[in-house]
Protein backbone atom coordinates (compact mmCIF):
# COMPACT_ATOMS: atom_id res chain seq x y z
CA UNK A 1 0.00 0.00 0.00
CA UNK A 2 1.24 3.56 -0.69
CA UNK A 3 2.84 4.99 2.45
CA UNK A 4 0.53 7.88 3.20
CA UNK A 5 -2.84 6.60 1.99
CA UNK A 6 -5.49 6.38 4.71
CA UNK A 7 -5.95 2.86 6.03
CA UNK A 8 -8.31 1.68 8.71
CA UNK A 9 -6.74 -0.31 11.52
CA UNK A 10 -7.85 -3.93 11.55
CA UNK A 11 -9.80 -3.67 14.80
CA UNK A 12 -11.81 -0.70 13.57
CA UNK A 13 -12.41 -2.42 10.26
CA UNK A 14 -13.76 -5.51 11.96
CA UNK A 15 -15.84 -3.50 14.39
CA UNK A 16 -17.35 -1.62 11.46
CA UNK A 17 -18.12 -4.85 9.60
CA UNK A 18 -19.71 -6.34 12.69
CA UNK A 19 -21.87 -3.25 13.26
CA UNK A 20 -22.90 -3.16 9.60
CA UNK A 21 -24.12 -6.73 9.67
CA UNK A 22 -25.59 -6.35 13.15
CA UNK A 23 -27.73 -3.37 12.17
CA UNK A 24 -28.68 -5.11 8.94
CA UNK A 25 -29.80 -8.14 10.91
CA UNK A 26 -31.77 -6.05 13.39
CA UNK A 27 -33.60 -4.42 10.53
CA UNK A 28 -34.66 -7.83 9.24
CA UNK A 29 -35.91 -9.60 12.35
CA UNK A 30 -37.22 -12.39 10.15
CA UNK A 31 -33.72 -13.77 9.85
CA UNK A 32 -33.69 -14.31 13.59
CA UNK A 33 -37.24 -15.30 14.20
CA UNK A 34 -37.76 -17.54 11.21
CA UNK A 35 -35.43 -20.25 12.55
CA UNK A 36 -37.05 -19.98 15.97
CA UNK A 37 -40.53 -20.15 14.51
CA UNK A 38 -39.52 -23.07 12.34
CA UNK A 39 -38.14 -24.80 15.42
CA UNK A 40 -41.34 -24.17 17.34
CA UNK A 41 -43.49 -25.45 14.48
CA UNK A 42 -41.51 -28.64 14.03
CA UNK A 43 -41.35 -29.30 17.77
CA UNK A 44 -45.14 -28.99 17.78
CA UNK A 45 -45.51 -31.32 14.83
CA UNK A 46 -43.48 -34.16 16.27
CA UNK A 47 -45.73 -35.00 19.22
CA UNK A 48 -48.72 -34.67 16.93
CA UNK A 49 -47.14 -37.20 14.61
CA UNK A 50 -45.52 -39.52 17.13
CA UNK A 51 -48.24 -39.48 19.75
CA UNK A 52 -48.24 -37.73 23.12
CA UNK A 53 -46.74 -40.58 25.17
CA UNK A 54 -44.17 -38.75 27.32
CA UNK A 55 -41.81 -41.72 27.54
CA UNK A 56 -41.61 -42.08 23.77
CA UNK A 57 -41.04 -38.35 23.39
CA UNK A 58 -38.41 -38.34 26.12
CA UNK A 59 -36.49 -41.14 24.38
CA UNK A 60 -36.57 -39.34 21.06
CA UNK A 61 -36.13 -35.81 22.38
CA UNK A 62 -32.31 -35.53 22.29
CA UNK A 63 -32.12 -36.56 18.65
CA UNK A 64 -35.19 -34.56 17.62
CA UNK A 65 -34.00 -31.38 19.28
CA UNK A 66 -30.69 -31.66 17.49
CA UNK A 67 -32.06 -32.60 14.07
CA UNK A 68 -34.46 -29.66 14.16
CA UNK A 69 -31.58 -27.35 15.11
CA UNK A 70 -29.71 -28.63 12.05
CA UNK A 71 -32.70 -28.11 9.78
CA UNK A 72 -33.27 -24.62 11.21
CA UNK A 73 -29.66 -23.78 10.40
CA UNK A 74 -30.16 -25.04 6.85
CA UNK A 75 -33.17 -22.78 6.33
CA UNK A 76 -31.15 -19.63 6.93
CA UNK A 77 -27.81 -20.79 5.56
CA UNK A 78 -28.60 -19.38 2.14
CA UNK A 79 -28.84 -15.86 3.51
CA UNK A 80 -25.18 -15.65 4.45
CA UNK A 81 -23.19 -13.37 2.13
CA UNK A 82 -26.23 -13.01 -0.15
CA UNK A 83 -26.85 -9.30 0.41
CA UNK A 84 -23.15 -8.46 0.22
CA UNK A 85 -22.87 -10.36 -3.05
CA UNK A 86 -25.94 -8.65 -4.46
CA UNK A 87 -24.91 -5.07 -3.78
CA UNK A 88 -21.19 -5.41 -4.57
CA UNK A 89 -19.87 -5.07 -1.02
CA UNK A 90 -18.20 -8.44 -1.39
CA UNK A 91 -16.00 -7.19 -4.19
CA UNK A 92 -15.10 -4.15 -2.10
CA UNK A 93 -14.16 -6.40 0.78
CA UNK A 94 -11.97 -8.45 -1.54
CA UNK A 95 -10.13 -5.27 -2.53
CA UNK A 96 -9.76 -4.02 1.03
CA UNK A 97 -6.30 -4.21 2.63
CA UNK A 98 -7.65 -6.48 5.34
CA UNK A 99 -8.01 -10.26 5.07
CA UNK A 100 -11.27 -11.36 3.48
CA UNK A 101 -11.67 -14.26 5.87
CA UNK A 102 -11.85 -11.91 8.87
CA UNK A 103 -14.60 -9.83 7.28
CA UNK A 104 -16.44 -13.07 6.50
CA UNK A 105 -16.03 -14.21 10.10
CA UNK A 106 -17.62 -10.95 11.27
CA UNK A 107 -20.69 -11.73 9.20
CA UNK A 108 -20.80 -15.33 10.42
CA UNK A 109 -20.53 -14.13 14.01
CA UNK A 110 -23.57 -11.93 13.56
CA UNK A 111 -25.40 -14.77 11.82
CA UNK A 112 -24.58 -17.11 14.69
CA UNK A 113 -25.73 -14.66 17.36
CA UNK A 114 -28.99 -14.20 15.52
CA UNK A 115 -29.69 -17.80 14.50
CA UNK A 116 -27.54 -20.07 16.69
CA UNK A 117 -27.20 -18.34 20.03
CA UNK A 118 -30.92 -17.54 20.17
CA UNK A 119 -31.69 -21.16 19.32
CA UNK A 120 -29.45 -22.41 22.11
CA UNK A 121 -30.94 -20.01 24.64
CA UNK A 122 -34.50 -20.85 23.61
CA UNK A 123 -33.89 -24.61 23.62
CA UNK A 124 -35.01 -25.23 27.24
CA UNK A 125 -38.53 -24.28 26.16
CA UNK A 126 -38.46 -26.80 23.33
CA UNK A 127 -36.88 -29.39 25.63
CA UNK A 128 -39.81 -29.06 28.00
CA UNK A 129 -42.25 -29.42 25.12
CA UNK A 130 -40.60 -32.67 24.07
CA UNK A 131 -40.39 -33.98 27.62
CA UNK A 132 -36.62 -34.02 27.81
CA UNK A 133 -35.52 -34.84 31.40
CA UNK A 134 -34.55 -31.57 33.04
CA UNK A 135 -31.13 -32.92 34.05
CA UNK A 136 -30.22 -32.88 30.35
CA UNK A 137 -31.12 -29.25 29.71
CA UNK A 138 -27.73 -27.72 30.63
CA UNK A 139 -26.04 -30.21 28.29
CA UNK A 140 -28.57 -29.33 25.60
CA UNK A 141 -27.87 -25.62 25.86
CA UNK A 142 -24.12 -26.07 25.99
CA UNK A 143 -24.06 -28.53 23.12
CA UNK A 144 -26.22 -26.22 21.02
CA UNK A 145 -23.96 -23.26 21.79
CA UNK A 146 -20.90 -25.13 20.59
CA UNK A 147 -22.68 -26.99 17.84
CA UNK A 148 -24.52 -24.10 16.23
CA UNK A 149 -21.21 -22.23 16.01
CA UNK A 150 -19.76 -25.15 14.01
CA UNK A 151 -22.94 -25.34 11.95
CA UNK A 152 -22.78 -21.63 11.15
CA UNK A 153 -19.17 -21.97 10.02
CA UNK A 154 -19.99 -24.97 7.84
CA UNK A 155 -22.99 -23.11 6.44
CA UNK A 156 -20.51 -20.33 5.65
CA UNK A 157 -18.49 -22.67 3.44
CA UNK A 158 -21.58 -23.77 1.56
CA UNK A 159 -22.89 -20.23 1.26
CA UNK A 160 -19.53 -18.98 0.01
CA UNK A 161 -19.47 -21.60 -2.74
CA UNK A 162 -23.09 -21.14 -3.84
CA UNK A 163 -23.82 -17.45 -3.27
CA UNK A 164 -23.42 -16.60 -6.95
CA UNK A 165 -25.59 -19.41 -8.23
CA UNK A 166 -29.15 -18.89 -9.28
CA UNK A 167 -30.71 -21.89 -7.59
CA UNK A 168 -28.11 -22.55 -4.94
CA UNK A 169 -30.51 -23.37 -2.12
CA UNK A 170 -30.93 -27.14 -2.42
CA UNK A 171 -27.35 -27.51 -3.61
CA UNK A 172 -26.18 -25.70 -0.46
CA UNK A 173 -27.97 -28.20 1.76
CA UNK A 174 -26.56 -31.17 -0.18
CA UNK A 175 -23.02 -29.81 -0.01
CA UNK A 176 -22.87 -29.10 3.70
CA UNK A 177 -24.88 -32.03 5.01
CA UNK A 178 -21.95 -34.47 5.35
CA UNK A 179 -19.99 -31.90 7.35
CA UNK A 180 -22.84 -31.28 9.74
CA UNK A 181 -23.32 -34.96 10.55
CA UNK A 182 -20.49 -35.26 13.11
CA UNK A 183 -21.86 -32.21 14.95
CA UNK A 184 -25.28 -33.81 15.02
CA UNK A 185 -23.89 -37.08 16.32
CA UNK A 186 -21.77 -35.47 19.02
CA UNK A 187 -24.51 -33.08 20.10
CA UNK A 188 -27.34 -35.59 20.21
CA UNK A 189 -25.14 -38.11 22.03
CA UNK A 190 -24.22 -35.50 24.62
CA UNK A 191 -27.85 -34.74 25.33
CA UNK A 192 -28.79 -38.42 25.34
CA UNK A 193 -26.04 -39.29 27.82
CA UNK A 194 -27.14 -36.48 30.11
CA UNK A 195 -30.78 -37.54 29.81
CA UNK A 196 -29.83 -41.06 30.88
CA UNK A 197 -28.01 -39.67 33.90
CA UNK A 198 -24.44 -40.08 32.67
CA UNK A 199 -21.73 -37.49 32.16
CA UNK A 200 -21.88 -35.77 28.79
CA UNK A 201 -18.43 -34.22 29.16
CA UNK A 202 -16.66 -36.41 26.59
CA UNK A 203 -19.21 -35.66 23.86
CA UNK A 204 -19.14 -31.96 24.71
CA UNK A 205 -15.35 -32.06 24.53
CA UNK A 206 -15.62 -33.55 21.03
CA UNK A 207 -18.07 -30.82 20.08
CA UNK A 208 -15.61 -28.26 21.38
CA UNK A 209 -12.78 -29.83 19.41
CA UNK A 210 -14.85 -29.78 16.23
CA UNK A 211 -15.79 -26.16 16.88
CA UNK A 212 -12.15 -25.18 17.37
CA UNK A 213 -11.09 -27.01 14.23
CA UNK A 214 -13.89 -25.39 12.28
CA UNK A 215 -12.96 -21.95 13.59
CA UNK A 216 -9.40 -22.39 12.39
CA UNK A 217 -9.96 -24.16 9.06
CA UNK A 218 -13.26 -22.95 7.63
CA UNK A 219 -12.22 -19.29 7.13
CA UNK A 220 -9.67 -20.41 4.54
CA UNK A 221 -12.32 -22.32 2.60
CA UNK A 222 -14.86 -19.51 3.04
CA UNK A 223 -12.53 -16.85 1.67
CA UNK A 224 -11.56 -19.12 -1.23
CA UNK A 225 -15.21 -19.82 -1.94
CA UNK A 226 -16.13 -16.13 -1.87
CA UNK A 227 -13.38 -15.28 -4.33
CA UNK A 228 -14.54 -18.07 -6.62
CA UNK A 229 -18.15 -16.91 -6.46
CA UNK A 230 -17.28 -13.31 -7.22
CA UNK A 231 -15.07 -14.37 -10.12
CA UNK A 232 -17.86 -16.45 -11.63
Amino acid sequence: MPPDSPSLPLASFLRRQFKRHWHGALRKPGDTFNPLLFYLMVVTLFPLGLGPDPEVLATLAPGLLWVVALLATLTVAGKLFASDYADGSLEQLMLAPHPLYLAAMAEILVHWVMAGLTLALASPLFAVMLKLPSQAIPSLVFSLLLGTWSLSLIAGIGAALTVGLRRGGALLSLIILPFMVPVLIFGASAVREAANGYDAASWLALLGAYALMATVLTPVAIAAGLRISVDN
Partner: protein
Amino acid sequence: MSNMWSIIHKFGSPPWFYDFTQRWLRWLLPITVLLLLAGSVWGLLFAPPDFRQGNSYRIIFIHVPAAVVALAGYYALAFAGLVSLVWKIKMADTAMRAIAPIGAALTFIALATGSIWGKPTWGAWWVWDARITSMLLLLFLYLGVMALFEAYENRATAAKACAVLSLVGTVNIPIIYKSVDWWYSLHQPASIKFTGESAIDASMLYPLLLNIGAFYLLFAVVVMLNMRAELLSDYRTASWLQQRLGGQP
Protein backbone atom coordinates in the same frame (compact mmCIF):
# COMPACT_ATOMS: atom_id res chain seq x y z
CA MET B 1 14.52 -34.64 -9.34
CA SER B 2 13.97 -32.23 -12.18
CA ASN B 3 13.35 -35.24 -14.42
CA MET B 4 10.52 -36.35 -12.13
CA TRP B 5 9.01 -32.88 -12.18
CA SER B 6 9.22 -32.71 -15.94
CA ILE B 7 7.42 -36.04 -16.16
CA ILE B 8 4.67 -34.79 -13.85
CA HIS B 9 4.38 -31.57 -15.80
CA LYS B 10 3.97 -33.51 -19.02
CA PHE B 11 0.67 -34.81 -17.65
CA GLY B 12 -0.52 -31.22 -17.74
CA SER B 13 -0.32 -31.17 -21.52
CA PRO B 14 -3.48 -32.43 -23.23
CA PRO B 15 -1.77 -33.77 -26.38
CA TRP B 16 0.87 -35.58 -24.31
CA PHE B 17 -1.80 -37.04 -22.05
CA TYR B 18 -3.88 -38.13 -25.04
CA ASP B 19 -0.91 -39.94 -26.60
CA PHE B 20 0.16 -41.40 -23.25
CA THR B 21 -3.25 -42.88 -22.55
CA GLN B 22 -3.52 -44.13 -26.12
CA ARG B 23 -0.32 -46.15 -25.64
CA TRP B 24 -1.05 -47.33 -22.12
CA LEU B 25 -4.70 -48.21 -22.54
CA ARG B 26 -3.82 -50.54 -25.39
CA TRP B 27 -2.37 -53.03 -22.94
CA LEU B 28 -3.73 -51.78 -19.60
CA LEU B 29 -7.35 -52.33 -20.58
CA PRO B 30 -6.94 -56.03 -21.49
CA ILE B 31 -4.80 -56.63 -18.41
CA THR B 32 -7.43 -55.02 -16.20
CA VAL B 33 -10.21 -57.12 -17.71
CA LEU B 34 -8.06 -60.22 -17.27
CA LEU B 35 -7.29 -59.50 -13.62
CA LEU B 36 -10.93 -58.67 -12.91
CA LEU B 37 -12.06 -61.92 -14.48
CA ALA B 38 -9.37 -63.88 -12.67
CA GLY B 39 -10.13 -62.38 -9.28
CA SER B 40 -13.89 -62.59 -9.67
CA VAL B 41 -13.96 -66.16 -11.01
CA TRP B 42 -11.50 -67.31 -8.35
CA GLY B 43 -13.46 -65.65 -5.59
CA LEU B 44 -16.98 -66.30 -6.81
CA LEU B 45 -16.43 -69.90 -7.95
CA PHE B 46 -13.29 -71.42 -6.47
CA ALA B 47 -12.74 -69.93 -3.03
CA PRO B 48 -14.04 -72.19 -0.26
CA PRO B 49 -17.44 -71.45 1.32
CA ASP B 50 -17.42 -69.64 4.63
CA PHE B 51 -17.97 -71.59 7.88
CA ARG B 52 -20.77 -69.36 9.08
CA GLN B 53 -22.14 -67.61 6.01
CA GLY B 54 -21.83 -70.41 3.47
CA ASN B 55 -21.78 -69.09 -0.05
CA SER B 56 -23.45 -65.74 0.54
CA TYR B 57 -20.16 -64.21 1.66
CA ARG B 58 -18.84 -64.35 -1.90
CA ILE B 59 -20.15 -60.89 -2.67
CA ILE B 60 -17.22 -59.68 -0.57
CA PHE B 61 -15.07 -59.98 -3.70
CA ILE B 62 -17.09 -57.18 -5.30
CA HIS B 63 -18.15 -55.26 -2.21
CA VAL B 64 -14.79 -54.72 -0.52
CA PRO B 65 -12.82 -53.70 -3.63
CA ALA B 66 -15.56 -51.26 -4.62
CA ALA B 67 -15.56 -49.71 -1.14
CA VAL B 68 -11.77 -49.47 -0.95
CA VAL B 69 -11.42 -47.84 -4.36
CA ALA B 70 -14.39 -45.52 -3.70
CA LEU B 71 -12.61 -44.16 -0.64
CA ALA B 72 -9.25 -43.96 -2.40
CA GLY B 73 -10.99 -42.27 -5.33
CA TYR B 74 -12.12 -39.44 -3.09
CA TYR B 75 -8.53 -38.78 -2.09
CA ALA B 76 -7.59 -38.87 -5.78
CA LEU B 77 -10.34 -36.31 -6.40
CA ALA B 78 -9.05 -34.11 -3.59
CA PHE B 79 -5.46 -34.44 -4.82
CA ALA B 80 -6.54 -33.39 -8.30
CA GLY B 81 -8.31 -30.45 -6.68
CA LEU B 82 -5.14 -29.51 -4.82
CA VAL B 83 -3.06 -29.65 -8.00
CA SER B 84 -5.68 -27.57 -9.80
CA LEU B 85 -5.81 -24.88 -7.09
CA VAL B 86 -2.11 -24.65 -6.31
CA TRP B 87 -0.44 -25.19 -9.68
CA LYS B 88 -3.43 -24.16 -11.82
CA ILE B 89 -3.05 -27.09 -14.19
CA LYS B 90 -6.16 -27.47 -16.33
CA MET B 91 -5.69 -31.22 -16.75
CA ALA B 92 -6.30 -31.52 -13.01
CA ASP B 93 -9.73 -29.96 -13.60
CA THR B 94 -10.36 -32.57 -16.27
CA ALA B 95 -9.25 -35.26 -13.83
CA MET B 96 -11.68 -34.01 -11.18
CA ARG B 97 -14.56 -34.02 -13.65
CA ALA B 98 -13.64 -37.57 -14.62
CA ILE B 99 -13.13 -38.97 -11.12
CA ALA B 100 -16.27 -37.64 -9.40
CA PRO B 101 -18.93 -39.73 -11.18
CA ILE B 102 -16.75 -42.85 -11.12
CA GLY B 103 -16.19 -42.54 -7.39
CA ALA B 104 -19.90 -41.97 -6.87
CA ALA B 105 -20.72 -45.08 -8.92
CA LEU B 106 -18.24 -47.20 -6.94
CA THR B 107 -19.68 -45.93 -3.67
CA PHE B 108 -23.14 -46.84 -4.86
CA ILE B 109 -21.94 -50.30 -5.89
CA ALA B 110 -20.38 -50.79 -2.47
CA LEU B 111 -23.60 -49.75 -0.74
CA ALA B 112 -25.81 -51.87 -3.01
CA THR B 113 -23.66 -55.00 -2.76
CA GLY B 114 -23.37 -54.47 0.97
CA SER B 115 -27.12 -54.24 1.23
CA ILE B 116 -27.54 -57.43 -0.80
CA TRP B 117 -25.03 -59.11 1.49
CA GLY B 118 -26.67 -57.81 4.62
CA LYS B 119 -30.10 -59.22 3.92
CA PRO B 120 -29.20 -62.94 4.25
CA THR B 121 -26.49 -62.44 6.88
CA TRP B 122 -27.83 -59.71 9.15
CA GLY B 123 -31.48 -60.01 8.23
CA ALA B 124 -31.72 -56.37 7.22
CA TRP B 125 -31.34 -54.49 3.94
CA TRP B 126 -29.93 -51.51 5.79
CA VAL B 127 -28.39 -50.87 9.20
CA TRP B 128 -27.02 -47.68 10.63
CA ASP B 129 -23.49 -48.59 11.57
CA ALA B 130 -20.22 -46.73 11.29
CA ARG B 131 -18.93 -47.90 7.94
CA ILE B 132 -22.25 -48.00 6.10
CA THR B 133 -23.27 -44.56 7.31
CA SER B 134 -19.83 -43.16 6.47
CA MET B 135 -20.07 -44.63 2.97
CA LEU B 136 -23.50 -43.06 2.55
CA LEU B 137 -22.06 -39.69 3.54
CA LEU B 138 -19.18 -40.31 1.12
CA LEU B 139 -21.81 -40.75 -1.60
CA PHE B 140 -23.30 -37.40 -0.60
CA LEU B 141 -19.86 -35.82 -0.80
CA TYR B 142 -19.37 -37.15 -4.33
CA LEU B 143 -22.89 -36.10 -5.38
CA GLY B 144 -22.26 -32.65 -3.92
CA VAL B 145 -19.12 -32.26 -6.01
CA MET B 146 -20.93 -33.48 -9.13
CA ALA B 147 -23.83 -31.10 -8.50
CA LEU B 148 -21.49 -28.17 -7.90
CA PHE B 149 -19.77 -28.84 -11.23
CA GLU B 150 -23.10 -28.59 -13.00
CA ALA B 151 -24.27 -25.52 -11.11
CA TYR B 152 -21.55 -23.17 -12.32
CA GLU B 153 -21.76 -22.00 -15.91
CA ASN B 154 -18.09 -21.07 -16.20
CA ARG B 155 -16.18 -24.36 -16.37
CA ALA B 156 -12.95 -23.01 -14.91
CA THR B 157 -14.72 -21.46 -11.93
CA ALA B 158 -16.72 -24.65 -11.46
CA ALA B 159 -13.51 -26.65 -11.18
CA LYS B 160 -12.09 -24.22 -8.61
CA ALA B 161 -15.24 -24.42 -6.49
CA CYS B 162 -15.23 -28.22 -6.64
CA ALA B 163 -11.55 -28.28 -5.73
CA VAL B 164 -12.30 -26.27 -2.58
CA LEU B 165 -15.23 -28.52 -1.72
CA SER B 166 -13.31 -31.75 -2.24
CA LEU B 167 -10.41 -30.50 -0.12
CA VAL B 168 -12.78 -29.57 2.70
CA GLY B 169 -14.29 -33.04 2.44
CA THR B 170 -10.89 -34.67 2.83
CA VAL B 171 -10.46 -33.19 6.26
CA ASN B 172 -13.86 -34.44 7.22
CA ILE B 173 -13.75 -38.04 6.05
CA PRO B 174 -11.79 -39.34 9.06
CA ILE B 175 -14.01 -37.30 11.37
CA ILE B 176 -17.18 -38.64 9.82
CA TYR B 177 -15.89 -42.18 10.14
CA LYS B 178 -14.76 -41.78 13.76
CA SER B 179 -17.90 -39.97 14.86
CA VAL B 180 -20.19 -42.61 13.41
CA ASP B 181 -17.92 -45.32 14.82
CA TRP B 182 -18.32 -43.93 18.31
CA TRP B 183 -22.03 -43.63 17.73
CA TYR B 184 -22.83 -47.27 16.87
CA SER B 185 -21.03 -50.30 15.50
CA LEU B 186 -22.24 -53.57 14.01
CA HIS B 187 -20.02 -53.92 10.92
CA GLN B 188 -17.26 -56.48 11.06
CA PRO B 189 -14.02 -54.87 12.24
CA ALA B 190 -11.05 -54.83 9.89
CA SER B 191 -9.96 -58.33 8.93
CA ILE B 192 -7.12 -57.33 6.62
CA LYS B 193 -4.21 -56.02 8.58
CA PHE B 194 -1.01 -54.83 7.04
CA THR B 195 0.92 -55.88 10.14
CA GLY B 196 0.53 -59.24 11.77
CA GLU B 197 -1.87 -62.08 11.04
CA SER B 198 -4.93 -61.27 9.01
CA ALA B 199 -8.13 -62.64 10.44
CA ILE B 200 -9.20 -63.90 7.01
CA ASP B 201 -7.91 -67.18 5.59
CA ALA B 202 -5.36 -67.13 2.76
CA SER B 203 -7.66 -68.99 0.36
CA MET B 204 -10.07 -66.07 0.58
CA LEU B 205 -7.49 -63.34 1.11
CA TYR B 206 -5.63 -63.84 -2.16
CA PRO B 207 -8.59 -63.54 -4.53
CA LEU B 208 -9.77 -60.56 -2.47
CA LEU B 209 -6.42 -58.80 -2.79
CA LEU B 210 -6.34 -59.68 -6.49
CA ASN B 211 -9.75 -58.12 -7.01
CA ILE B 212 -8.81 -55.04 -4.99
CA GLY B 213 -5.80 -54.57 -7.26
CA ALA B 214 -7.98 -55.20 -10.30
CA PHE B 215 -10.51 -52.58 -9.13
CA TYR B 216 -7.72 -50.04 -8.66
CA LEU B 217 -6.60 -50.71 -12.23
CA LEU B 218 -10.19 -50.52 -13.39
CA PHE B 219 -10.52 -47.14 -11.69
CA ALA B 220 -7.38 -45.88 -13.41
CA VAL B 221 -8.54 -47.20 -16.80
CA VAL B 222 -12.04 -45.73 -16.52
CA VAL B 223 -10.68 -42.38 -15.30
CA MET B 224 -8.31 -42.30 -18.27
CA LEU B 225 -11.14 -43.14 -20.67
CA ASN B 226 -13.34 -40.49 -19.09
CA MET B 227 -10.57 -37.89 -19.30
CA ARG B 228 -10.01 -38.74 -22.95
CA ALA B 229 -13.71 -38.18 -23.55
CA GLU B 230 -13.47 -34.80 -21.83
CA LEU B 231 -10.46 -33.89 -23.96
CA LEU B 232 -12.32 -34.92 -27.11
CA SER B 233 -15.17 -32.65 -26.10
CA ASP B 234 -13.11 -29.67 -24.91
CA TYR B 235 -10.52 -29.65 -27.66
CA ARG B 236 -12.57 -30.90 -30.60
CA THR B 237 -11.52 -27.95 -32.77
CA ALA B 238 -7.85 -28.03 -31.73
CA SER B 239 -5.37 -28.91 -34.47
CA TRP B 240 -3.46 -31.45 -32.41
CA LEU B 241 -6.64 -33.43 -31.86
CA GLN B 242 -7.73 -33.15 -35.47
CA GLN B 243 -4.35 -34.53 -36.55
CA ARG B 244 -4.63 -37.51 -34.24
CA LEU B 245 -8.16 -38.24 -35.31
CA GLY B 246 -7.10 -38.21 -38.93
CA GLY B 247 -9.14 -35.16 -39.90
CA GLN B 248 -7.81 -32.10 -41.68
CA PRO B 249 -5.51 -29.99 -39.36
